[in-house]
């Protein structure tokens, strides 16, 4: 038989994300698109030589698609395999390659390792070789990958609005370079983003040399430099801070969300979590004084809620107390005394806090947030100096950035004075410059505006020449991380749309001989090839970290002087905080679907920003209705906030724990010129962002505007209802009964006649009741692996809830975004969610008003618990979800028919159903349908809607998919797989390594799940629970270890370590919070305490086994 029988092709599971690039290049639609998108016939027309480049660069040639949908013909399509004509050296098809690179951010950088398949980066990880990193990253770094494959990015160069070839841009740059070389740079100005790139610094110096009259302005709307400026005052030199929170035992955060939205948050999380994990007397203690409810506040042991303009008063009040303890008097103390006037914090609170800080001199640090004025930063640095923070917890290092000639206001002044050419490198000042500067109007005065931009955004509209920028994964470059270490930026792919890098553009302007970015970086690095190779391989230059400045250079008097000159604005009316958005930053990630859809860590709002207010403020404004979902959807009141003559309008969000008389607005939304993802998401808060007040405006007025606005949230209920889901205790309590977490919920109440299993099964730590049937693993030993049994421990003590894992999981596992409308309907697809619970004790005496306004917060990452006796499995009628030999609850997507019974029967509700073809059909992104009953979005159009698989530009976005993971189609259930692809790859790698031998066990740490790998807090540990020495086994043996809903006897393979809080006993007394509120709730609902013996359960059993001698001793 020479032909195949005419078979009906199998309907595919999920769309095919990429077919042979060759095939792709041959499609007429694609050709058409390419021609349209690259009208200048730029670098990548897939013909002849260029075609080979194309194939080389993204040679996904073998990954053939099961083409067509199931309605197609009945004959199996003939598919071709197109190998390389000439195989690249050392290339093994099908093996992923890893390259070290880094993501530059605002003068700092995140050191990364990028995984590349067939020349296509598919996953970014932190570089654990970097001296100041642990392999974790923040969520922005995870999502940055999606920007690379954004079909809405700037894909062309334009002059006066029309497309131009790349040569035109090159000529134009060198021509204008020549022009300005002649006049010394008269009329030339640069407006750039912050950068610590040594190469850019070098080029900036050369610009200054070649064009001495040119100006160099640096502008960031969310500028983290305030801390550095205060530090520079203290040290009398241009320095920047480098926090080492792992060395801090007491931390005071003054409106500083250092684990959320501050610079290098993932580093801070690492340090903070390290000091948290010990759960003993070495454990750190965090005081947060803040206006917004932030992750930092949620993780704090004590949180003081004050309006932003009052933070300085509290800071000063604590400062006075610390100085008094240190015996320092004089100008500083006097100024502080003045500033402290009218502080909302009680004297006792401030005294107790100060005393605690001072007692831990040498291990206490004070942090001030970027929204706060210089005064607060000066106080913070003064306190750091007094508390001996410099060295152990904080160092001042030489600033990695060059000095600039000013910022945006100077730039506007220069524009008004008349500029010939303004070169805008990155940024988006037309959108995010302080609105009173009227940047756009000023920019129009310049003759030429050359703009290098990643998107054709608001600023692009102003540009006479717009140059498409390259993504950092397409660029050669360099940067410095927060500790000053020099890191390379390495491309993994040729610029998809022929974009320029910043340094190349500058170099062309300078008229340098070698303008390729690689040469430029090499020019900075030097000629040592071996060192260069090591630099690239390691992803950093060893020993290049900046030397900390000697503390002897610090002078408090300078601070005192500077502080005396500061006149912080007093709050009046309502304060407005304009904060960096946890999702879209200052607006730069506005078109990133992953970030748009990742819920805010506190509010759980997706796809937009809201006006945060406290319940009290809500009452004042006459918004009686609390933020409860009505009919499952949040239809929020609209509020109009006016500061001076400017106002913004947005939906209200009543946020527990939020400061009174304060509005919290996230920046970065409401963009007018953005891609299809960001279009229509949120409202623009920049109109209140003024040059003078920047992040905190005061004297605001507010009025409720008629109408309602739909807000999409991923978590509707925020209270634990007394259920011991997150189990926590204070450190003092924990010491009295370390296994308290095992003594909670119904599992501690088994009637005495329920027998326990005699023999431990070797997998579960805690004794379990004897079932009528043995588990098949025990009954039919052939069904269980004796080599690996996988398990995970999640330490709630160190998890801070930063969302990095959510995005890492999304990136690794090809999780689609669903759009605001679907989120509002409760159909988000994230396999990993971070549950956020508030708790308050109605009987507690708290510092301000009602307890409900000052809740405690607890976070808990929740995902498939891989229950050994999984309720989801037994209800599946088609065997689509079963257990494999190694304890993984697996999903066979191609078997699933989508009854959703498994999701219903999952006690953790972690299963996600593809209600629509989210991969194939375009969602509505931020555009939400107005009601539940009738719906008419894109997804609802079904086959009549746009099929992404057929739209040529989607070939680009499909490249982001991880080829190791099936892309799921509609009607299929999915959920966390424990990164089964990584597990299998590790097992295969080990087997390949050992060949014909029996050493097939993957060594501990050989498999790292995506969430584990990204976690800066190292809160997630995964491994083989059969190996008693594995990290995960050790953690599971800790007394803090417990299973959520353990009483169901479903034996989750994911267990949690109870969270330990470390409050200051004195303040706890003041607050009346002698134990965590969740625990108090539990005791109130259940009439029992985990610290008392009761019932019959695992904790007691263990006691019988192990603690009997102690009884005798007692």
């Amino acid at each position, binding site marked *: 038989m020479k032909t195949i029988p005419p078979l009906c092709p199998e309907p595919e599971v999920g769309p095919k994300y990429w077919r042979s690039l060759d095939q792709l290049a041959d499609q007429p639609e694609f050709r058409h698109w390419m021609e349209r998108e690259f009208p200048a016939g730029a670098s990548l027309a897939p013909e002849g030589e260029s075609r080979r480049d194309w194939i080389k660069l993204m040679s996904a040639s073998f990954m053939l698609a099961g083409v067509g949908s199931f309605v197609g013909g009945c004959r*199996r399509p003939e*598919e071709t395999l197109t*190998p390389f*004509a000439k195989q690249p050296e050392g290339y093994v098809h099908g093996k992923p390659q890893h390259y070290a690179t880094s993501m530059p951010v605002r003068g700092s950088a995140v050191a990364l390792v990028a995984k590349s398949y067939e020349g296509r980066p598919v996953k970014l990880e932190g570089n654990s070789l970097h001296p100041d990193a642990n392999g974790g990253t923040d969520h922005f770094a995870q999502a940055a990958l999606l920007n690379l494959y954004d079909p809405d990015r700037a894909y062309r160069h334009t002059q006066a609005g029309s497309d131009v070839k790349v040569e035109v841009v090159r000529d134009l740059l060198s021509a204008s370079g020549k022009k300005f070389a002649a006049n010394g740079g008269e009329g030339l100005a640069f407006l750039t983003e912050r950068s610590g790139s040594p190469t850019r610094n070098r080029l900036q110096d050369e610009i200054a040399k070649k064009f001495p009259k040119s100006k160099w302005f640096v502008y960031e709307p969310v500028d983290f430099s305030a801390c550095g400026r205060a530090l520079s005052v203290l040290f009398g030199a241009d320095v920047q801070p480098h926090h080492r929170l792992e060395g801090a035992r007491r931390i005071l955060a003054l409106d500083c969300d250092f684990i959320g939205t501050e610079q290098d948050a993932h580093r801070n999380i690492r340090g903070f979590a390290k000091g948290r994990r010990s759960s003993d007397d070495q454990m750190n203690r965090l005081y947060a004084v803040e206006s917004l409810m932030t992750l930092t506040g949620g993780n704090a042991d004590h949180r003081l809620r004050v309006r932003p303009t009052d933070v300085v008063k509290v800071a000063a009040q604590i400062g006075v107390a610390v100085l008094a303890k240190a015996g320092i008097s004089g100008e500083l103390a006097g100024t502080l005394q003045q500033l402290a006037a009218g502080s909302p914090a009680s004297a006792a609170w401030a005294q107790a806090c100060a005393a605690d800080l001072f007692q831990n001199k040498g291990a206490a640090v004070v942090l001030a947030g970027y929204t706060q004025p210089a005064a607060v930063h000066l106080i913070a640095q003064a306190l750091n100096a007094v508390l001996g923070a410099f060295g152990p917890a904080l160092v001042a290092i030489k600033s990695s950035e060059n000095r600039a000639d000013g910022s945006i206001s100077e730039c506007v002044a220069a524009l008004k004075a008349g500029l010939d050419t303004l070169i805008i490198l990155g940024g988006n000042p037309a959108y995010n410059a302080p609105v009173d500067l009227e940047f756009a109007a000023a920019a129009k005065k310049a003759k030429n505006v050359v703009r290098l931009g990643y998107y054709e955004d608001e600023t692009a509209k102003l540009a006479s020449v717009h140059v498409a920028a390259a993504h950092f994964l397409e660029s050669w470059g360099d940067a410095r991380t927060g500790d000053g270490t020099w890191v390379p930026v390495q491309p993994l792919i040729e610029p998809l749309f022929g974009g320029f890098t910043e340094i190349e553009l500058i170099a062309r302007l300078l008229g340098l001989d070698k303008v390729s970015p690689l040469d430029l970086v090499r020019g900075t690095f030097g000629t040592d090839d071996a060192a260069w190779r090591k630099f690239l391989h390691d992803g950093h230059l060893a020993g290049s970290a900046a030397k900390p400045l000697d503390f002897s250079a610090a002078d408090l008097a300078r601070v005192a002087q500077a502080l005396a000159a500061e006149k912080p604005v007093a709050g009046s009316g309502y304060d407005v905080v304009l904060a960096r958005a946890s999702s879209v930053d200052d607006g730069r990630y506005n078109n990133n679907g992953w970030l748009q859809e990742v819920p805010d860590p506190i509010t759980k709002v997706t796809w937009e920003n809201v006006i945060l207010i406290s319940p009290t403020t809500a009452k004042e404004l006459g918004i009686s209705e609390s933020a409860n979902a009505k009919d499952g959807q949040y239809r929020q009141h609209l509020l109009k906030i006016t500061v001076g003559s400017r106002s913004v309008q947005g939906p209200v969000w009543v946020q527990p724990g939020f400061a009174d008389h304060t509005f919290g607005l996230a920046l970065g939304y409401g963009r007018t010129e953005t891609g299809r993802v960001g279009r229509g998401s949120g409202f623009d808060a920049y109109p209140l962002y003024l040059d003078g007040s920047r992040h905190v405006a005061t004297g605001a007025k507010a009025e409720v505007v008629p109408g309602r606005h739909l807000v999409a949230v991923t978590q509707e209920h925020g209270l634990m209802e007394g259920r011991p889901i997150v189990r926590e205790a204070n450190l003092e309590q924990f010491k009295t009964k370390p296994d308290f977490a095992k003594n909670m919920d119904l599992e501690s109440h088994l009637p005495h006649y329920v027998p326990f299993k005699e023999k431990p099964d070797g997998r579960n730590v805690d004794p379990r009741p004897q079932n009528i049937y043995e588990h098949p693993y025990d009954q039919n030993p052939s069904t269980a*692996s004796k080599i690996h049994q996988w398990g995970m421990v999640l330490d709630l003590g160190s998890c801070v809830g930063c969302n990095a894992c959510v995005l890492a999981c999304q990136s690794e596992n090809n999780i689609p975004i669903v759009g605001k409308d679907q989120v509002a309907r409760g159909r988000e697809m994230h396999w990993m969610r971070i549950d956020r619970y508030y708790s308050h004790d109605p009987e507690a005496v708290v510092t301000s008003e009602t307890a409900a306004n000052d809740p405690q917060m607890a976070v808990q990452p929740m995902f498939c618990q891989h229950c050994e006796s999984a309720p989801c499995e037994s209800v599946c009628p088609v065997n689509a979800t079963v257990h*494999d*030999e190694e304890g993984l609850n697996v999903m066979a997507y191609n078997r699933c028919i989508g009854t959703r019974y498994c999701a219903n029967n999952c006690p953790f509700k972690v299963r996600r159903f593809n209600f629509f073809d989210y991969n194939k059909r375009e969602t509505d992104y931020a555009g939400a349908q107005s009601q539940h009953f009738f719906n008419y979005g894109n997804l609802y159009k079904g086959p009549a809607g746009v099929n992404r698989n057929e739209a040529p530009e989607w070939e680009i976005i499909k490249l982001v998919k991880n080829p190791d993971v099936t892309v799921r189609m509609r009607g299929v259930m999915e959920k966390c*797989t424990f990164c089964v692809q990584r597990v299998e790859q590790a097992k*295969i790698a080990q087997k390949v390594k050992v*060949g014909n031998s029996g050493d097939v066990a993957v060594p501990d740490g050989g498999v790292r799940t995506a969430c584990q790998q990204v976690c800066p807090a190292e809160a997630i540990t995964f491994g083989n629970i059969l190996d008693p020495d594995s990290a995960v086994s050790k953690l599971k043996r800790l007394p803090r270890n417990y299973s959520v809903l353990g009483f169901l006897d479903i034996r989750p393979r994911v267990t949690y370590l109870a969270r330990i809080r470390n409050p200051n006993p004195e303040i706890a007394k003041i607050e009346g919070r002698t134990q965590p509120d969740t625990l108090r709730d539990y005791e109130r609902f259940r009439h029992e305490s985990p610290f008392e013996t009761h019932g019959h359960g695992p904790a007691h059993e263990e006691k019988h086994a192990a603690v009997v001698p102690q009884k005798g001793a007692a």
Partner: protein
Amino acid sequence: MSDIFPKWTNKLPLMAGIAAVVVGLTVTAGITYYFTPKYTRVGYQPKQPVAFSHAIHADQLGMDCRYCHSAVEKSWFSNIPSSGTCMNCHSQVKKDSDKLQLVRDSFASGQPIPWIQIHKTPDYVYFNHSVHVNRGISCVHCHGQINKMDEVYHAKSHSMAFCLECHREPEKFIRPNELVTKLDWVNEGFDGKKAVHDWKVQPGQSCSTCHR
């Protein structure tokens, strides 16, 4: 006027019974034919752009499979050799053969040769070559006696049942690693059971082994 049904209609029940049996058998056979070998494509033998003979290269010349399929031990994918690989020899041997024109063109122009894919697993199956050939599973088990084929055809079924056959009883198939490319090897005294035990060969039979 008479009874509406003629006498022969009394045979209808019998005929219906026979028809039911026939239809039942046909449907069963049809299902077996259409559904069972859904992915097997056994016998598929497309005409390749270059008339490459495995029989000549692997059998007569005794070349090892891994000379051309060099990634098979390292990657999930067993690569098709590049034109360059062909030219390693064919720049010397038969360098003017008409049959090799396409190879020479490809090598010169960089245009890949569009080989037609024969063996293919569905997209949701993550088959890995390296783990099989490094753990004593020979090419022959899945691909048949390629070394005897002038034109390659699909010899084995590649259905899930086919995979499970070996995953359930690896001892029947396993051989020492160094023999995996010896497609003619006949087992004389190699103790598969012992190898399975000593090498801890425990091929997965649950979903995650192949579906992710």
